[in-house]
């Protein structure tokens, strides 16, 4: 299992939520509910799913986006 700090997540990365849902990040919102947390969103034909995370917490990374490499 690969973990990554939430503030290192990039668009296109694939994550697994704590409930087991797999998502591809298509948008990153800041200041979720005014809490200062980040919120990762997949808004695609496959699903709309939102997962918040504190910036300094780790999230499970399934696959890093490789489009910039």
């Amino acid at each position, binding site marked *: 299992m690969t973990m990554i700090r939430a503030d290192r997540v990039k668009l296109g990365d694939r994550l697994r939520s704590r409930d087991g849902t797999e998502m591809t990040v298509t948008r990153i919102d800041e200041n979720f509910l005014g809490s200062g947390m980040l919120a990762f969103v997949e808004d695609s034909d496959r699903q*709309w799913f939102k997962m918040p995370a504190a910036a300094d917490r780790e999230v499970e990374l399934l696959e890093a986006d490789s489009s910039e490499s």
Partner: protein
Amino acid sequence: MDFDLARIDGSPLPADELTGKAVLIVNVASRCGLTPQYEGLERLQQRYSDAGFTVLGVPCNQFAGQEPGTPEEIQQFCSATYGTTFPLTEKLDVNGRHSHPLYQWLTQTPDADGAAGEVEWNFEKFLISPIGEIVARFRPTVAPEDETVTKAIQAVLA
């Protein structure tokens, strides 16, 4: 407000059951930290139902997967843990390309800050007037018994 809706048990929820009522539509999730809001929602139901008001809970699993249960589990959680008596719909998508037409309509409405669009999180609230107009939108952190909510309910029931 004429949308195809089903109750949590899968049976149809006829539009005429809501027609003529003020309805507070709330997307809910059993594993969310905001579930204590169920208590306030039920108190609103008790306080205003005789005047032609109802809460309508809409289970949704799009927010961190916090509503993963079966219909039976969701119903049991609400009634046993919080003693809710207001109706629940079947589980719906409230955001995205597959969102239910009810929410495609609701999310065009701005909140108090003028922001329309996506539902932000569990327990976002939309108040519908007895003539079927969306009159207010309250974001998730606005408590059900916040004065802005109760005043809006009282205004549409007046």
